[in-house]
């Protein structure tokens, strides 16, 4: 926690498709990190090259090639931050840029805090006084935002899982600590054996969270995409096709989806955060009405709307309401149920609203590929984009999970090496702290409180 002068990394270009993407590294280890992941023609390491030179080569994660890149080297103090700085210019795909950032983090960098490059530049005297206040503003506003959004982004289920894991860690730590503190009342002899099982189990749980993080499922990130349409237009079917599993309940009954379902999908490097919503119609059912209101509310905030039209039924007043709602938004219109006889005329619809239109059948899974290409197109043309802050916090979650996992591995090692019990709790508490940084909780008096509430101390 707090201010550090370790090596930080961030994507410094916008998270949309552009000619190039830039990943920047700054700090003591910037050169040693790039040495580990760069492969060029020259056998010379980049750290042995002159400052302010550009090198052509590849970013590698072990044997795997990530991208063909240009690397710019700037030794401190002659850099923006005043520290050793490395810039990696890669192909501009969001996916690739992100992969490179993840690689530098894997090899020892830490995701930069918002405004941290500027802060370092200032602290190292690379910025004049008049710029200082602006930096302060950035730090304070963006940090609060980042923390907030980071915590907000956690899905309830993930949040609960992390909380559960933390509780288990805290309990065992408190038990060991209470025994160390009051050895004549509580014995911890031989505890390592049972703790090992617990730790291995926790490792698996965190590994599973990390695996899903890699799929992009754990953390909601990316373009906020909302599927809207009147009841029974096939929104949930579309959602299921896109997600690839039966998440939404699909029935013949109009108004089945009453809540808002959310899923994250990756379309060739483009991350979509898709929400299925209740069909929009005038309804007297209170529960359904809440769903409808929520759907409208979400559509209002969306980066992108997918409007599903039931092409087998004529447009009605509900459709007209939706058309008005999406008029000024980025949207794609899907004419669903192309497998049935269609009654909605594409031309007529085009006179009402100008948006990309695609014929699909969610049931037969036709037209889905075309939808994907259209979305990718829109994204790469910069029609839609998303907030890069959101992305950074997700990397941070992943880093924190990885940190917690490595701490738990150290606990297991200590147990296996027959270290005394007090060594276990050092790494247990590190894991606890790492996980807490995801849920936005600090340690505070947690341990002491747990000791006193769960274990009877003597005297």
């Amino acid at each position, binding site marked *: *926690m*707090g*201010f*550090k*002068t370790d090596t930080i990394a961030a994507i410094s270009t916008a998270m949309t498709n552009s000619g190039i993407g830039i990943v920047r590294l700054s700090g003591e280890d910037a050169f040693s990190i790039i040495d580990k992941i760069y492969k060029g023609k020259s056998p010379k390491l980049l750290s042995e090259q002159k400052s302010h030179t550009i090198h052509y080569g590849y970013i590698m994660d072990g044997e795997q090639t990530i991208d063909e890149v240009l690397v710019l080297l700037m030794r401190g103090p002659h850099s923006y931050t005043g520290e050793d700085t490395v810039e990696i210019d890669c192909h501009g795909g969001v996916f690739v840029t992100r992969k490179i950032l993840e690689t530098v983090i894997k090899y020892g960098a830490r995701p930069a*805090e918002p405004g941290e490059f500027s*802060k370092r530049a*200032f*602290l190292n005297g690379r910025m004049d*006084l008049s710029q*200082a*206040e602006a*930096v*302060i*503003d950035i*730090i*304070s*506003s963006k*940090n*609060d935002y980042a*923390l907030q959004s980071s915590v907000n982004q956690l899905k309830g289920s993930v949040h609960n899982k992390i909380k559960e894991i933390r509780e288990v860690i805290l309990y065992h730590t408190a038990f060991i*600590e209470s025994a*160390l*503190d*009051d*050895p*004549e*009342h509580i014995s911890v*002899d031989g505890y390592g054996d049972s703790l090992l099982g617990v730790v291995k189990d926790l490792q698996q749980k965190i590994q599973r969270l990390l695996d899903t993080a890699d799929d992009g499922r754990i953390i909601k990130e990316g373009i906020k995409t909302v599927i809207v349409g009147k009841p029974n237009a096939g929104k949930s079917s579309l959602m299921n096709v896109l997600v690839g599993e039966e998440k939404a309940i699909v029935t013949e009954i109009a108004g089945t989806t009453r809540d808002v379902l959310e899923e994250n999908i990756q379309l060739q490097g483009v991350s979509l955060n898709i929400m299925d919503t209740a069909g929009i119609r005038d309804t007297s059912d209170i529960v359904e009405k809440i769903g409808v209101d929520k759907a409208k509310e979400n559509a209002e905030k969306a980066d992108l709307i997918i409007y599903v039209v039931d092409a087998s039924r004529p447009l009605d007043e509900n459709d007209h309401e939706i058309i008005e709602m999406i008029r000024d938004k980025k949207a794609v219109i899907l004419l669903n149920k192309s497998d049935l006889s269609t009654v909605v005329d594409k031309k007529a619809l085009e006179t009402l609203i100008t948006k990309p239109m695609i014929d699909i059948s969610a049931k037969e899974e036709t037209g889905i590929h075309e939808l994907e290409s259209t979305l990718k197109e829109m994204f790469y043309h910069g029609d839609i984009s998303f907030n890069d802050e959101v992305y950074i916090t997700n990397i941070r979650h992943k880093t924190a999970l990885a940190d917690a996992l490595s701490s738990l591995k150290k606990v297991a090692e200590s147990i296996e*090496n*027959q*270290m*005394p*019990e*007090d*060594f276990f*709790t*050092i790494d247990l508490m590190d894991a606890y702290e790492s996980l807490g940084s995801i849920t936005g909780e600090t340690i*505070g*008096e947690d*341990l*002491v409180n747990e*000791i*006193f509430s769960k274990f*009877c*101390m*003597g*005297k």
Partner: protein
Amino acid sequence: MKYSANSVWENKDAYDIVVVGAGHAGCEAALACARLGLKTIVFTVSVESIAMMPCNPNIGGTSKGHLVRELDALGGEMGKNIDKTFIQSKMLNKSKGPAVHSLRAQADKNKYSNTMRQTLENQENLEIRQGEVVNILVEDSSVTGVQTYSGAIYRCKAVVLCTGTYLKARCIYGDVSTHTGPNGLQAANYLTDCLKELGIKMYRFKTGTPARIDKRSIDFSKMEEQFGDERVVPFSFTTNPEDVQIEQTSCWLTYTNPTTHEIIRKNLDRSPLYSGMIEGTGPRYCPSIEDKIVKFADKERHQVFIEPEGLETNEMYIGGMSSSLPEDVQYEMYRSVPGLEHAKIVKNAYAIEYDCIDARQLHPTLEFKSIHGLFSGGQFNGSSGYEEAAAQGLIAGINAALEVLGREQLILDRSQAYIGVLIDDLVTKESHEPYRMMTSRAEYRLLLRQDNADQRLTEIGHKIGLISDERYQMLLDKEEIIRKEIHRLEHTNVGTSREITDFLTNCGSTPLTSGSTLAELIKRPELNYELLEPIDHMRTESFSREIMEQIDINIKYEGYIKRQLKQVEQFKKLETRKIPADIDYDAVPSLRIEAVQKLKQFRPLSIGQASRISGVSPADISVLLVYLGH
């Protein structure tokens, strides 16, 4: 109660420092000031109660043992005093890692108190004065003196408050309540109001003690005998280890049972704790027996330790059964415990309530932020325990002296000492109960071991002037020996010869398949420096146990130690960034309002301290850093 004097007169003797109270904190404070050459006077309500131990008859214990050793390395007295007066000693947690080894000694209470009193009486520059201090005299937010109950005024340059549990003390059991300090001693009833008038925020805390029972009425055959260690380790680094190998006295272990618990449950409504008669907040780590039974209802028995109060008394301390139940219930309850069936109570168990301060009003130097020259230490600061008190008393005394001498103040940080953790917690964190030291409170406890307290702090004690040149030189020599020997072990190779293989097999250790250093072998859990002697042909000297222990610890736990050292490096970066005293937080752009309020209220001395204040976020710290970067 507000004090109004009848006849005021001014004592013409000039003092540099007044210490109020001569308990464990007051003794250390007074000795430190006098030893630094300042004219010091220490007030106590009763000279007979100097260094009195009104609760448990032992010094040390987990994490508290660390405090005593640190105090000793800085030049404090507690370690030396207990080495002269203990009757049993144990190193706790010996089967655990070195970081949690903790020394605990049973004291002969009277001897402990008398020995300390003699040390005070014979200390140059120090006067002992019986009397109750009722007023702290302050002019322009600076201390100018104190006034006693008799009306006498003593002028001084600094005051150290170590009033312990005496301020407006009240002892309670059942429906009986007396306005006395511990052990029936006179309470100090006036000072609180004076402090409140000076704008100091007070809390009311509570603690308790078990009954003392006549040894002759106890049937020890029904109890388990608890022996001291075969080889005793002294507390003080200056005590010759051979001098503490004395004949030791035993303690005894017995247990409560369902009958005991039933008696307590049945009478809970008569407990002042549950009837609301007690208003103070008690400590969770040292619950009364009635608390334990309510909170841990499913436990069928609790341990009861029977500990001698000294060699020349029959009083036995009933550890684990502190209580504020009525006298008749106490008899019934104690007598339900095996071995105590015919117990004769000498002193009742009781709860005690007292006034103390919210220690967040103090700087980490233990000086009041709002009153120049006013320092405080011990239970008055909201802590509990003799050792916690002594540690603070020493630091408060040292800083009062350094301030009078115009020298730089001493602040130990969390990476240097348990004392640093203790004081930082006290002055930074909100606390609702008497604060007790615990090893889990120390983030860097692998570095803050009791065995290396001398290596951590002797230099500081020497710089202050409480450690002699000779003692400091001895430490330097010791460190040099350790360093050289570790270096040699790391560079001495052993191969796969028959001799080595046989040796390792005999020790139950896996034979080597390729070359290794001696240091590598020491890392194995089943081996250590001493054991390797037969195959270490270059070994010329035989070192003391203390030195061998240092070699083993430094080699065996090297990886962990290095990791913590790295964390400390990060920690120090914030800790060493000082915040100017005249900083105007309102003028710092973009600092959140909550942070501004907290920082203005706390006035932290360093960025590190600021970062530990609740309500100050990492972003606020970044903002501050940038602002201070101007």
